[in-house]
């Protein structure tokens, strides 16, 4: 079994400044130095999209639930020829079904069908933020050869902890 090398292991609130710090940490990691540029860009893009996703759901953490709050987390590990990106964040239970639907949908589609879905979603009117249409998930699914692995752990009657794992080949 190849040894796992940790590149990023972060747990805490994700602000835009934190995103910059984590991306700088990724860019300067020695494990990326010998990597082919396109694969490096895929890894970089995957980390940006996962951080954007966490950032987007930050509003799901209401102040009155802070005591029960589980901090967002991001882990990037190199294991042999693979980079494994694991991201976790708290979401409202009312968002769980929609997220599951979008994740299952991209996992079931082949590349051609994903591209058609990408075209459909990108041509929708842009909302205030990402409009939750899932363009980030589609983009990540197109850049990895494996499924987007995910889980939801119930925290209380209103919240769950969402974890997603994406593998990028060197």
């Amino acid at each position, binding site marked *: 079994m190849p040894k796992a090398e940790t590149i990023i292991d972060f747990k805490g609130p994700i602000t835009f400044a934190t995103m910059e710090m984590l991306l700088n940490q990724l860019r300067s990691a020695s494990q990326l130095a010998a990597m082919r540029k*396109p694969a490096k860009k895929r890894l970089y893009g995957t980390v940006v999209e996962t951080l954007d996703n966490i950032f987007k759901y930050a509003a799901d953490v209401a102040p009155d639930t802070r005591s029960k709050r589980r901090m967002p987390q991001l882990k990037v590990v190199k294991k042999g020829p693979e980079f494994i990106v694991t991201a976790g964040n708290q979401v409202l239970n009312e968002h769980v079904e929609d997220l599951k639907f979008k994740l299952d949908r991209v996992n079931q589609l082949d590349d051609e069908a994903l591209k058609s879905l*990408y075209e459909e979603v990108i041509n929708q009117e842009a909302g205030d933020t990402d409009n939750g249409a899932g363009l980030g998930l589609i*983009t990540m699914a197109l850049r990895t050869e494996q499924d987007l692995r995910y889980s939801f752990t119930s925290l209380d009657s209103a919240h769950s902890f969402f974890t997603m794992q994406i593998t990028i080949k060197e």
Partner: protein
Amino acid sequence: MEKLIIDPTANSPRVVLDPERNYFEFSGESRPENVRKFYLPILEWLENFNAEQAKLGDAERVHGLQSQFNFAYFNSTSAKYILDIFKALSDLNSHGIDIVVHWFYEEDDEDMLEVGTEMSRMSKLPFEYVKVDEQE
């Protein structure tokens, strides 16, 4: 019309919309904190430019507009707005303003080349693809 120039940052691209020089440019990374706030003034500028050009006779209109798209990276939220920019340029093109779009991609970066071909197809605007050596 006044030119629009936006200096680049670590997370937002350099933007040049300069009708006097017949030159448009987008280069660098695009993952600004508020993507909508960043791109809306650009789309509004293009809309006004389009309206202004539509009022002019053929002799007064801009011709041979050069546009360069040299993105190192853009996130999926930016992609929506970048496609909207191409749709605006496509409208200009259909009003008789000839535009050359140069889409830069690094050697071996098939993802960037592929997203360029998709943007071109979806906006119905022909692109010229420019392969560049890997940049650090």
